[in-house]
């Protein structure tokens, strides 16, 4: 295990940020901490980095106890949500910081920084100041800075949170390639389930200071441990005790015995995907996702009466939170 948190609890006044949290992260993996804001994921990341001291519990990094170790002795790279660039230093000096503080020889520093500038695709920008970079460039500079001293662990706090949608998509692909190249154990915090499912090979879902489930993306989506995970890692319809994904509802124009009647309230076409909002005869509202072709065959129009059937539904024991 590259990182292990055991029974970590952290309070801020009356607020319980982490409530007896235990997490294991495999070496070389790309792990997402996913959850709503205030769920404790950033606090857990900061506890691992040593920026917060847990009230109780232990942290192990590469098998060594690190709970009381100062952040500068943990060998972690940390990328802050707003990148925390050193505003009075050039891009080069920012990236070199972890090396110059370790008094590495000048030539070595120069070589390593140039490599990193290449790696994060900021060629020719070494002499600029952070204020002269775009958000995406600043983000990559922060990543290069965190990677410079070859940390055993890379921690990213909402790495794409402050960027616009297009840059965010670009950087996701880029982070994935970077991870494939460097294989440094990486944990990133996100509240975006799509980001977590797309990037991570293991996802830790957190809510209200607790771990709800730890699983690879596919398992998380197909076999959510409880109602919270089900509703957080994708859109969902709640029908009584049952939880149904929008793509697990079938729409037919004719009844077939197992269907129920419903009326089309709204149709939204989003390129490949068509979203239909229905109200069933018993008054339940349903959200349905269809592929475009499927939707066109049905020739749906607002106000139409259709017949729906759930293909797959999940129920959770009463203790499944939400």
């Amino acid at each position, binding site marked *: 295990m590259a990182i292990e948190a055991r029974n970590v609890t952290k309070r801020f006044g009356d607020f319980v940020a982490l409530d007896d949290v235990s997490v294991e992260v495999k070496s070389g993996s790309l792990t997402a901490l996913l959850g709503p804001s205030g769920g404790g994921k950033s606090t857990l990341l900061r506890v691992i*980095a*040593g*920026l917060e001291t847990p009230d109780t519990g232990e942290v192990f990094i590469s098998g060594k106890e690190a709970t009381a170790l*100062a*952040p*500068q*002795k*943990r060998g*972690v*790279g*940390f990328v*802050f949500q*707003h990148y*925390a*660039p*050193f*505003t*009075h230093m050039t891009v080069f000096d920012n990236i070199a*910081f*972890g090396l110059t*503080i*370790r008094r590495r020889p000048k030539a070595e520093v120069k070589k390593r920084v140039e490599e990193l500038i290449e790696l994060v695709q900021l060629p020719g920008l070494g002499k600029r*100041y952070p*204020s002269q970079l775009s958000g995406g460039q600043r983000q990559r500079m922060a990543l290069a*800075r*965190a990677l*410079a*001293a070859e940390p055993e662990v890379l921690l990213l706090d909402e790495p794409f949170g402050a960027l616009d949608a297009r840059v965010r998509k670009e950087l996701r692909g880029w982070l994935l390639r970077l991870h494939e190249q460097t294989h440094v154990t990486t944990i990133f915090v996100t509240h975006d389930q799509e980001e977590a499912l797309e990037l991570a090979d293991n996802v830790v879902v957190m809510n209200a200071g607790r771990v709800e489930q730890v699983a690879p993306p596919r398992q998380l989506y197909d076999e959510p441990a409880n109602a919270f995970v089900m509703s957080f890692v994708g859109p969902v319809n709640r029908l009584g005790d049952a939880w149904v994904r929008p793509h697990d509802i079938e729409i037919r124009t004719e009844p077939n015995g197992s269907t129920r009647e419903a009326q089309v309230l709204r149709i939204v076409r989003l390129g490949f995907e068509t979203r239909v909002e229905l109200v069933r005869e018993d008054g339940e509202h349903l959200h349905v996702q269809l592929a475009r072709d499927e939707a066109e065959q049905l020739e749906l129009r607002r106000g139409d009466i259709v017949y729906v059937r759930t293909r797959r539904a999940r129920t959770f024991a009463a203790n499944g939170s939400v």
Partner: protein
Amino acid sequence: MTAKRASNSLLLVRLGSLGYLGIILVAPVGLIFWRAFEHGFHPFWAAVSNPIAVHALKLTLEVTVIAVPLNTAFGILCALAIVRHRIPGMGLVNAFVDLPLALSPVVVGLALYLLYGRDGWFGHWLLAHGVRVLFALPAMVLATMFVSLPFVVREVVPVLREIGTDQEEAAATLGASPLATFRRITLPAIRWAVAYGVVLTAARSFGEFGAVSIVSGGIAGRTQTLTQYVQASYENFDQTGAYAASVLLAALAITTLLAMTVMRHGDRST
């Protein structure tokens, strides 16, 4: 029509503020300069090069050179303690730092007199051990430090709050010790606030009169600072001497402010 009215009111604001500055600030200072050089440069030079005036200038600089670094170091530490560490009682310290701004310097001088005088709490013991505080340099430095204490703290605190802890935390995760973080991250980030605080502290130190005049004794050629020299000259009907020393004081103040402006102009990264 509205544009014209707007430009008229803008003109009024400008004239108003300039006029105010002119009457309150420029006229008195200008008058000092005019009076000092009224009869040419020679009387001025004669007045400022007289040994007592030279000694007063030296003493003022000496006091300032001791008080400013001490208050700068204390000010930075105090600001860090107020902003960065949640130490119980820091709120009280924060409030106390402003005391010298609210308290009349005369009261400060009197308090020091009571503390370090022959029968004072510390004075008695110190005198018994051969350390003379009152009517000597130590008391003048103490008085100056007291009155110029808040400036660095007050300049640095808001800047520390504004820059937040992100950069310091980033430096820590990159392997920097707390001291290295302070030297390489925090200090560069607050340097202009410190510089401005230093300028204000120095300006206040040059100009201090009330507290120092009580504890120094004001003996010409020995414990007389430049401000006291101005007063003494004026009372002795040596108007040229008073004006000339005033010009020196004003020149010191203007030089520090100019140095500050030039420094700030040279640095655009913040």
